Structure formats: C-alpha cells, structure tokens
C-alpha cells in the first residue's frame, strides 16, 4: 500500500510558477535530504531524554510530510510531538521503534519524483 497521497503532490504542482525551478522536485528533494537527519536527531533525543528537541523536530517533519503527501508518517510525527509535549518519554520511545523504517519507505516511494525530475533535467 502506497504511503504517498498523490493529491498532495498535485497541489504542489499547481503552485508551480512558469520559468521557476520544478517545485515538486525541490519540495520532495528537501524532504528526502533533510528528513533522515531529523529522524536521527529525534532518535538521539529519545536516547538522551531531550523532550524539547523531540517536540520541535517532530513538529517540523510533521508539516513537511503532510506537504509531500506522506499522511501516515505525518500522523506519526504529530503523535510524537504531542507525547513529547506531554513529557511521556516512554511513549516517545514506543512511537520511534519503526519510525526509521517508515521514513525510509516514504523516501523510497518519493524517489521516482526526484528521478523523474533528474531525468528531465538530464
């Protein structure tokens, strides 16, 4: 089952201005390059019990995931933001168990959009 809602990507496409760099590629590119680092930040913070870092980082990824149509992943980061704000570190740990896999799965699904544009660019 696909992790990506195509409507979201279509919405980004609709924002594309003529003559400007491909917006979908830029947004997806940003997600793909930045999210793994964010996930690592979160996992480190869970390890060290830094709830504030978990909250702020999860908040950021939550929005990015929504924009690229990764609804389910966005929901997971939203939950993580809530439990971090509530100070429930054990729940944070629970939510983070397979967060890396999920993220990699979403990135994997988004890669064709990068490739496409890379192809077009090539």
């Amino acid at each position, binding site marked *: 089952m696909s992790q990506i809602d195509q409507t979201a990507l279509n919405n980004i496409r609709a*924002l594309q201005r003529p003559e*400007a760099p491909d917006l979908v590629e830029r*947004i997806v590119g*940003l997600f793909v390059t*930045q999210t793994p680092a964010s996930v690592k930040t979160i996992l480190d913070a869970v390890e060290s019990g830094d709830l504030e870092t978990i909250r702020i980082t999860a908040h950021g990824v939550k929005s990015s995931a*929504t924009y*690229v149509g990764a609804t389910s992943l966005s929901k997971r980061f939203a939950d993580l933001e809530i439990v971090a704000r509530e100070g429930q570190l054990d729940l944070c740990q629970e939510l983070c168990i397979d967060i890396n896999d999920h993220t990699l799965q979403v990135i994997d699904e988004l890669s064709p959009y990068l490739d496409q544009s890379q192809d077009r660019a090539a």
Partner: protein
Amino acid sequence: MTSKSTSLTDQFPEVSPERGKPVVLHVDDDLASLLMAEGPLADAGFVVVQASDGLEAIAQFKKHSPDLVIMDAVMPNMDGFAAIAHIRKTALGTHVPILMTTGLDDLESITRAYDEGATDFLTKPINFFIMPYRVQYMLRSKETADELRSSQARLDNAQRIARLGHWEWDVATDHTNWSREVARMFGFDKHTLGGPWESLLAKIDVDMRQEVRISAEVAVESGKRFTLEFDVTGKRANDTCSMRLEAEPKLDNNGLCTHMLGTVQDITQSATAQKEIHDLAYYDLVTGLPNRAQMRESLTQTLKLSERMNTQFALLFLDLDHFKQVNDTLGHDAGDDLLQQVSNRLSSVLRDSDVLSRPKDTDADSGEQQSSKDSVARIGGDEFVVLLGNINRAEDAARVAERIAHSISEPYTISDIEVAVTTTIGISVYPNDGRDAETLMKHADVAMYHAKENGRNGYQFYSRSIHDQALKRFSIERELKIAIEQEQLKLLYQPKMDLNTGDIVGVEALIRWSHPERGSISPAEFIPMAEETGLIVPMGKWVLDESARQVQGWIDRGVGRYSVAVNCSPVQFTRGNMISDIDNAVKNSGIDPSLMEIELTENLFLHNIENGIQLLSCIKGLGVQIAVDDFGTGFSSLSYLKRLPVDKLKIDQTFVQELHKDKGDAAIVSAIVTLGHNLGLSVVAEGVENAEQLEILRQYKCNEVQGFHFSHPLTSAEFEQWLIDRNGPYVQTATG
C-alpha cells in the same frame, strides 16, 4: 527539519521591493512552506521577503519594513511569539498586521499569540491558494484601520487647534465617552477618555455645576438641546478656563432619550477678549469707572424700572472746579492721580449713602421693592455723573450732593503736594426734569452751569421749584433734628368737656415747633417730614413722655386729674417700638394709665386688620384708652369696628364744621354717635366753634366736645389759668 546552523534566508535571492507593491515577510523554519507560499503571494502582487526563525524575522522586519508578516509559531532560536512581541514594540511594528501560522489543535499557541499581538491565524497544513486572499483581506483591514487612525488623529488635531472636544453620554448605563481634547480641557489624564456623567460634572466649577446637571436632566426629559457656559478650574486656582457646552439628546423610535451627544469648546480666549473689548468700550481707563456709554445703559435701565415702578431717581452732573489748573501746573500724571482719588471718594460716598436704597416707610408692606442701583461714571475730562437709582424725595439727592461736595473738598496729596479741589453739581430728577436719558443729562448739565454761576462748590437742581422745595425741606429736616435735641418743640393742650356734666375731663396734646429764626412752624409742614425721615419716632416718644409728665404734674400741684390724648403716627408702630414707649411714659410719670389716651387713625388698620387688632390689644393691655381719630373720613369699615378694642370715636371736625347748616353732615354725626353708643363706645366731637354746633351735639348725646368755642390749644400755664377763670380756684375742682 533542523536548520539551527544554517540561515535559510541566505538561500533566498535579495529582494528589492518594487515600488508600490506591498511587502510580505514570511517567517517559517520549514523551507518547503516558504517555497510553496512564494508563488501564490508573488502572483497576488506581493513582494515576499523570508526568514527562518524569530531572530531573522526581526532583522528582516527592520530592513524591509513589511506591510504584513506571516509568522510560524514553533521555530528554533526564537519562536514566533517572542518575535511578535519584539516587533510590536518597534515604532513601525505597532500596527502591522501579523498572520500567525499554527496547528489547528494547538489552542494554547493561539491564545498566547493573541496575547502577544497576532492579528489573525492560518492553520496548518497551510492552504497556499487561500493564503494570498487572507493576506489581501488583512491589508485592506489595515488600510481601513490606518485611515481610521489617521482620521482620528486629524480630528484630535482639529479639536486641539479649535480647543473643541466632543462627548457622548449613554443615559441608560451612565457611561460617558469623551475625546482627548475634552480630557485635556477638563484636566483628566490623557488615557482617561470615559467615565460616569457625574465625573465630568465634578470638574465644573461649583457655581454652575448644578445648573449643568439640571439642564441635562431637563434635556433628557424634554428631548431639547441646550447650551451653557461655565468655568473649569484646574489644579491651580488661576488656571481657570471658560467653556461652552452644547448638548443634543438622541431619541429612540419611541421618542425617549437614550444618548446625549455634545461638544465642549474652550472659550477662555474669546471670553477674555470680549471682556477686554467690553471694558475698553464701557470703562474709563484712568479711573476704572464706567464711561459715558456704560452710564447711558445704566440710565436706560433705571428709566425703564422707574417708569414701571412709578418711582423717581436723580442724575447728578459733577464738574471739578479748577481741575485744569492742577493739570497745567502739576502735569497730566498728577491730574490722572487726582481723578482716581476723586473717583474713589465718589464711590465711597455712594456706598455709605444707605438712605437711598431705603424703601418708603409708608409703603413698607405694600409690595415690590426696587432693585435699581446707584452708580458713578466718568464721562469726560473732569466730569462725572452719579445716578441715584431710587430716591424718595428730592432732598435725598441734595443730601448726597452735599456729602459728595464735602468729600471732594477734603485735601488730596498728589506727588507729596497737598491739592484742594471742589466740585459743582447739577441735579435733574426723573420724571419732573425729563423722561428720557438725553433730557435728564442735558438738564443736569444746565443745572451744573447755573450752580457755577452761583458760585462754585455747591449744587443746584434743574427745576427752581424742586430746588427751593428740596432746599427748604432739607434744611427743615436738619433743623428738626436739632429741634428735637435742643427741645425747641413744645406741647399745647386743648381742653375737652363732658357734654353731660359740663366738666373739663381732659386735654388733647398738640405739638408745636417754635423755630428760633423762622418762628412757629406748622405741624402740617414738619410732621410729614418727620414721618418720612423717621424722626417721628424720637419725636413721638418725647410727646408721650412730656404729656404723661404734665398730667402727673397737674395732679401733683392740685390742678386736677385730667386725661391726655396723644396723637400717634403709624410710622411710630412700623419703625419704632410704640408699645414700650407708651409703657415707659406711663410708668416713668407714675400716672394712672387710664389717663393716657392714644389717638390713632383708621389708616393704621388699612393694610392688615388682624395685625391692627393685635396691636390695639397690646396697647389696651397697658391700661391706656384708645380713640379712633378723624372717624368717618377714612377706612371706616363698620364690620371691623366692632372687633377693634377701642374706647372712643372722634368725629372728624369737617363733619362738625357744617353740622348746623348741612343736613347731610348732621345725619353723619348723628349716625356716628348712635353707632358708637351701640358699640359701647364714647364719642367725641372736635372742632366745635359755636353754640349751635354744641347744641346739636348735645341733642345727639355726644359724650365729649373740644374746639375754639371753649378754648384754643393752650400752654400748660395758660391751661391752669383757664381752669381758674372757668371754675374758680383749683381747690374746688380738686376736691369736687
């Protein structure tokens, strides 16, 4: 997405805002959001500048002065709340619209953002198609708010320049809003722009506060607008402003007043200017006295009043004698100094002339009193006019003129030099000497010239007859005072006979004035004057004492026991203490009170019969007799006669004179005698001059008679001799 170490704005091209295009500062740590918003905002005609956290937002705001800020809430380094708080504190950031982007579920952030000064919210995930519309709407709102603020500022400025403020009172809730200028004028601090109606009233000076309060209440009831002027005194007493308040009630559909709208204008300057203009136009700069124009107005007022009240007043025209010499020899400054001193003396004389404002004694209880005032004006170089607003007699004016002449002639010290001037006064009297201002002024002026011709330092009435009369009466009045002091007055006694027995039963005491130079002065001449001046009071007291003493003297010397009838004037009751005067006369002499007979005319009861009855009861209570004098000529209300505690009726001599010739008079005399007897009163006829009259009176059974037929009024010694001539030696009468 973490971006702690990189500034995202570094990745954005430098933006140079295009002329006329609104600038939007978009702040978000999520680069994707910034990228996606960029296109729609640019398409909508905005120039977009970006920042990735609060610190950068502040820097960008300072650099670009954006028209609007889109601000993310949760960001690293400095979050959106802190950034908003910072921006709001800057001059340009006070009113800039700030659109906060936040999660829909994050209510805490929404509340906090509002507290810090966010204008509106956009929930995440952001719909980037809608965002430009929201931004446009906010900018339009801001324009409207700007216009409103600017309009408010213009209004405030206009009101400040015009010293005009506005206010609105919600009658139901009793809340009043007022503009900044009202706050300034009424001494509120500039942030206090509202409060209860009473808090506004409390600032008004107390003398007018109640009037404003009542006027507002009346306006609420009547729905009619009103205008009032009053003073507002600030923290310092000399910090007083004059205000004009205009108020207009606002009515609802039922015609009830729900609100009152109004303005307040500071009219201090115009009020001061008006007063200055008025003073310049109506007051003399040298003396501070009213000038000719002001005097003309006072005169016009007094004319109206006197016409209505049917009273007289006098105009005194004064000219300083030889003033020109003072001016020529000592200089104009000395001349001005003299004029000031003269005007002070004039004012002082008028203040002390209480006689002028006194109502006529005889009219004391007959109603309205005048409110006209005396005033003095300088109408030319050394010319003054004094207006005596209400005089009873021409002598009053003469008296003031004399005081003025005396006061002015006292020496002055001017620049250490003693100076003497005198004044000459011309007097015109309304209505005799003129019925309009012009004529009265002219005639006072003419009179003044006549006075100068007759030698300076004096006064002269315009009318020769008034002058002579006033002079004579004035001097008689003065002399009468002396006469009382120096005992030039004396009493004569006219015997009264009992018609039934033929015995002499008493006398009527009659006052006479033997003037050392003028000889005998008629009571008809000096009694009315004594009544007008109040001299009748000491005079009447003297008559009571003297006649009682005389009665006791006759008893002591064995002449006989005779009653004495004393005439009393109504003025003695209104201005003196008649009851105690009678009582003292009786007690001090030691006579039996029944030997004292008080003769009063019916006029005493004319105004108030109940008071009259009460008064007579008091006199009666002293044990003295009371006779109604001149009965038949005056009031003669028969219904009240029976209620009056009197003992005798005296038939007026006019009826007695023609008694033997005129059947009408005879009928009246007969009727009075019968009436008196039926009421249990004794009846006395006066003015009996012949035997025919006496015979008729005897037939009518009149009780007592007096008149030339028996004896003229006699001195005490003459009376004693007359008794001897008539009755033989005293011893007979005394024993028999």
